[in-house]
């Protein structure tokens, strides 16, 4: 990969996605060794800059960097001087002055990762910016599907729920369509405005119809914290229409898998019996996440493998 930063899936070429997935595949094995470490990024410094709460993504990046022998520093806004009125730019410049090589950023503002690239010398990896993109999540979703299904081309991928506020939905949509999958978006029309049909996707508000013949179903969390004004009447009504239940799964392909970027809200978008069933690959996604992030870090920093 020739690029310095990973900001969005939208800007990636198909061959870059393939290269990243191939690299990630080769890293899967490292995490299964008794000694889970390679020297690829020895001497490199990676900083996790998390301005939004995260457990999964930050730990995943941290473990990925450590397994590549990089030095990692975690910075989250709760313990930062951001609250003392320091700007994002100043905060980042101060950290960068310690000679960092790569910054992983999560921020509530869309475009925050791109903003960093306008003044940073380090590589920048977007770990989720507002409602824009979350590229490594899409890559790990793709790797999970690849490992299970052997291909992405021709797969029917259904993404369900709060599309409007989901950076995962955006990144997944771009990635799966670029790789030849058929993407269907489903959710209440207030969380899936009509202009989403300008994407190369099918919009189907009726979940029962949307999941017909699906290979992959990606369920999303309702991002209540980002919602201004009532987007739907009640959680009860939302559950009725958009919760994935064993009954609804009957319409999919028999070997369809269920994914979720987490954190899941049991009983809202997923019934517990689906979440805990053999169809659910949610924990596999987490496992693949480490390999994908190892791949991204090593490709951007150009470490020899």
């Amino acid at each position: 990969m020739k690029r310095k930063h990973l900001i969005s899936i939208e800007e990636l070429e198909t061959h870059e996605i393939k290269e990243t997935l191939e690299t990630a595949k080769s890293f899967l094995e490292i995490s299964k060794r008794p000694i889970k470490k390679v020297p690829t990024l020895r001497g490199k410094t990676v900083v996790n800059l998390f301005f939004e709460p995260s457990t999964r993504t930050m730990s995943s990046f941290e473990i990925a960097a450590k397994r590549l022998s990089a030095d990692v520093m975690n910075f989250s806004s709760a313990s930062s001087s951001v609250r003392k009125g320091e700007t994002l730019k100043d905060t980042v410049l101060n950290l960068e002055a310690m000679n960092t090589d790569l910054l992983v950023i999560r921020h509530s503002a869309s475009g925050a990762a791109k903003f960093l690239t306008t003044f940073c010398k380090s590589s920048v990896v977007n770990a989720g910016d507002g409602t824009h993109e979350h590229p490594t999540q899409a890559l790990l979703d793709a790797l999970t599907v690849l490992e299970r299904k052997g291909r992405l081309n021709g797969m029917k991928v259904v993404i369900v729920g709060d599309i409007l506020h989901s950076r995962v939905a955006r990144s997944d949509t771009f990635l799966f369509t670029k790789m030849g999958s058929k993407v269907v978006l489903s959710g209440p029309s207030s969380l899936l405005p009509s202009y989403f049909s300008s994407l190369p996707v099918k919009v189907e508000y009726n979940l029962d119809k949307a999941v017909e013949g699906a290979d992959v179903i990606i369920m999303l969390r309702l991002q209540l914290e980002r919602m201004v004004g009532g987007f739907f009447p009640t959680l009860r009504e939302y559950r009725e229409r958009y919760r994935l239940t064993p009954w609804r799964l009957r319409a999919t392909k028999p070997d369809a898998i269920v994914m979720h970027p987490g954190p899941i809200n049991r009983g809202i978008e997923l019934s517990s019996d689906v979440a805990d069933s053999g169809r659910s690959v949610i924990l596999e996604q987490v496992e693949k996440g480490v390999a994908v992030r190892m791949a991204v870090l090593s490709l951007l920093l150009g470490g020899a493998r």
Partner: protein
Amino acid sequence: MRRLLKNARIVSPLNKLDLIGDILIEEGQIMEIGKGLSCDDCELLDLTRMIIFPGLIDMHVHFREPGREEAEDIRSGAKAAAKGGFVAVGMMPNTQPPVDDPLRVRFVVERGKDSKVYVFPVGAFTKGREGKELTEMALMAAEGAVAFSDDGSPVGDPLILRRGLEYLLSLDLPYIDHAEDLRLSQGGVANESYFTAKLGLRGIPWVSEASIVARDLLISEFTGAKIHIQHVSCKSTLNIIKNAKARGVRVTAEATPHHLLLDETFLSNYNTNFKMNPPLRTREDRDALVEGLRSGIIDVIASDHAPHTKDDKEVEFDAAPFGVIGLETTVPLIWDKLVSKKKISIKRFVELLSINPANILNLKGFGKIEKGLPANLTVINPKKEIKIETEKFASKSKNTPFEGWKLKGAPVLTFVEGEIVFKAL
């Protein structure tokens, strides 16, 4: 001092003037207009191949005095205006504190007197611009307020708007309307569309503007008061205004250079110098606005000059304040992109930037080049090539979306009461 402007094209559509000739200025007044004028002890300015217009007026600017003088003060703003070819500006009242009482109007007038151009205060329509209680509009008018507006904060309560508009009838002054339904645009930072949804930017839908324009024009129709719609940004608003004009509603409307020349696709890099309210909309909206200039739905081009410091703008997109500056870029942009490209005529240019704003704000002696009037003149060199470079701006702020644009046609001389307030011949 006497000055003789020689060999220029003189354009003043209001009195059907369009000739190559000379203007003699004495004691701040236009003494003579004609061909082959001469004068013994005059300062002579050869303006061959230049065009002299009635002084241009930007009826929508924000100078940040009092309150945020580090972004702009009245003096620096007026200097930027002179440099941009403007002889007068309408200054919006959203300072800190806002211009919402007679004393504060007097403050702006006094500060304006020792600046380069006329600074006409627009007074706040409600106290504190909070939309609750009317300001002392008659007393403010007596101190020099030329219109009233809560610009930046729409008047939400239709009863307050109705009472205020009815009250203004007795003063025969216009109400200037920032039309926005804050509940519909809550939290928004960019036009609501497919394009901005991909960028993850929270939307300000066009209906948040158009629905309030519709309501406010009906209230204006009901009361019979004059209303001026600021910064029209979308096609739907244009249709509503067109319809109201056909019914005889006393409405005028303005468009900004950025809404005329840019659209939402410029946001792809999250550059905060493209963040303003109303937001840049679609290509279709932009084309409709240009057509609105031609058809007469839009009466005025105004910059909505909104200075912000580099520190304020150099943040993540969500956190940046709305607004861009425009005083030093409006004339070259409109000249190059609309006049030279034959989208609007030279006559329409003068109407949009001088005659109509003068009419709307009841500015006597503006909008015309005529013997006996104060010599408020703008000279444009239609062949001058410029590049927009913020470091050369007179404005204290640099937040323009047009940095680096190369344009042909620029103001070269600005006269206020016969004095040269800007010269770049």
